[in-house]
Every structure is written in C-alpha cells, then in structure tokens.
C-alpha cells in the first residue's frame, strides 16, 4: 500500500484519505437523497392526514402480496450487497462477482414485480390523469393517493435503475481485476447507495401498502 499506487488520485495524499473522502462523500450525497424523497414524504403525510379515508381506500387497491414480496426481495439484495462489499474487503474477487451478480438479479426481479404492479394499475384505470376511474367514495382525493404512489415508487424505481447500472459497472470493473483488499472504494460506495434505496422502500412499503387492510 504505497503513495504511488495507481489507484491513488493526484489530489489525495494517501489511500486512507481517499477512502475516507469517498465514504464521507457518499454519505453526504445520501443526505441530499433523504431530503429529495423527504419532500414527497412531506406531501404524502399532509394529504394522508387530511384525507385519511380516501388514502385507506386507495391503499386497499394496492397488491399487498406483491409489495411484501418486493420488500423481502430488496432486503435479500441488501444482504447480497453487504456480502459483496465484505468479499471486496477480503480481496475475494470471485465471491465479489458472484454476490454482485446476485444483487443485480434481485434488483431486476424487484423492477419486474414493480412493472407487473404498474400494469395492473393501468388496467384497473388507477393511473392518475384523464383515464383515472375510481369507484369509491372520494375519487378526487383517492387520485391524490395514487399520484403520490406513482411519484414515490416511480422515483424509487428510477433510483433502482441507476443502482443497477452502477452495479453493472462495478461488476465489470471487478471482472477486470480493478479491486483488491486495499482499494475497493467504488464497491463500498455503491453498496451504501444500494442500501439507501432499500431503506427508502422500507418506509414506502408500510406508508403506501398498509394504510388500511384492517381485515
């Protein structure tokens, strides 16, 4: 581990400083992500408070089984991601690649399930806009629920797609042998991002899928 390692960028004095900067950097970036989703959580909270009945009715139309399955799928992908980072820490290239691939697979599965859910909503005329049709007591505010459902899960899915792209690049880099026990910042930093996306879903699931369901 030397100051002249190829992995050391010119602005840093040593690998330790570079690593700390990378990790802190990702945490600071995640702060911005918390506030970004936070704006939507705020809007959601206000409207749920004002129109609780409509939100319950809207939530009942969501597929609880698919949502819960996705929650477990994402948690599993977080596990494999953590194991991937651990493999990088230990310099185990093949294990790293395997765990990254698993994470990619699980992440894609999440998106497929989400896609199925979205297409259900489309066929049930529950996508907000000119074709929205809700047979319930308060369709106007139920549409508000579905606006937030699609906005929040939509931005979340967007972040998943970016994450998958990121992991694909990391997988390729690890295939090329770019990481070892001394230097694997991109793996760690991608892991932090991936876990954050999981945390957002951990909150989205109960807020969107478990409003009603008092049966």
């Amino acid at each position, binding site marked *: 581990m030397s100051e002249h390692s190829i992995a050391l960028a010119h602005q840093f004095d040593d690998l330790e400083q570079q690593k700390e900067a990378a990790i802190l950097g990702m945490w600071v970036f995640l*702060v911005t992500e918390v506030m970004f989703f936070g704006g939507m*959580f705020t809007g959601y909270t206000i409207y749920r408070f004002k129109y609780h009945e409509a939100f319950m009715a809207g939530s009942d139309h969501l597929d609880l089984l698919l949502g819960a399955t996705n929650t477990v799928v994402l948690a599993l992908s977080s596990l494999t991601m953590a194991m991937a980072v651990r493999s990088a820490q230990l310099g185990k290239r093949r294990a790293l690649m395997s765990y990254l691939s698993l994470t990619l697979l699980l992440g894609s599965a999440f998106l497929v399930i989400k896609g199925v859910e979205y297409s259900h909503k489309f066929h049930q005329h529950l996508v907000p806009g000119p074709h929205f049709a809700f047979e319930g007591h308060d369709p106007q505010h139920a549409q508000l629920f579905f606006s937030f459902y699609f906005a929040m899960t939509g931005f979340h899915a967007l972040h998943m797609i970016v994450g998958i792209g990121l992991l694909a690049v990391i997988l390729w880099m690890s295939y090329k042998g770019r990481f070892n026990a001394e230097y694997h910042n991109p793996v760690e930093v991608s892991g932090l991002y991936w876990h954050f996306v999981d945390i957002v879903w951990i*909150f989205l*699931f109960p807020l969107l899928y478990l409003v009603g369901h008092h049966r």
Partner: protein
Amino acid sequence: MNREHIIPPKVYLLVFAALVVGTLAMVAAARVELGPLNIVVAMTLAALQATLVALYFMRLRYSHRLNWIFAGASILWLLLLIGMVLTDVISRLSE
C-alpha cells in the same frame, strides 16, 4: 476508521432475518385496528429496520463519527420539514 472491521456473515444473516420478521410483523399489525397507533407501530418497525440496515449493512457502526453526524442530520432535517409543515396543516384544519 482504523483497520477495516470485517463483519462476520452471521451478523449479516441475522440482520436479514430481522428485516423479514419485521416486514411480517408490520403486515400482521396492520390487520389489527389500533386507530392512530397503527401508523406509530408501522413507522417504529420501519425505523428499526432502517437502523439495522444503516448500522450493519452500511457499516455505520464501525464508521467515522463524521458519517454518523451526516446520517443523523439528514433524519433530523427530514423530521423538521415534515414536522413544521404538519403543524401548519393541523392548526389550520381546526378552523
């Protein structure tokens, strides 16, 4: 952060198990009519799950205190945003 702390796989598996159990508990609790407590239970469970992910999967537990501060600040600011807007809305509703 000194020499990197490697977390044993067992710990990761335990966290994953906790996440699954937490999810099941959330769904079960939602089926019981608890009034305003429903949201409290759900959010508490979610917060616990998120904390486990942050501490162990994201390795915050073994990280520099500076990272803790930024992670904490983000939660604080989120609560500030939601909280203060909510106080406005609540106090208007009674009119």
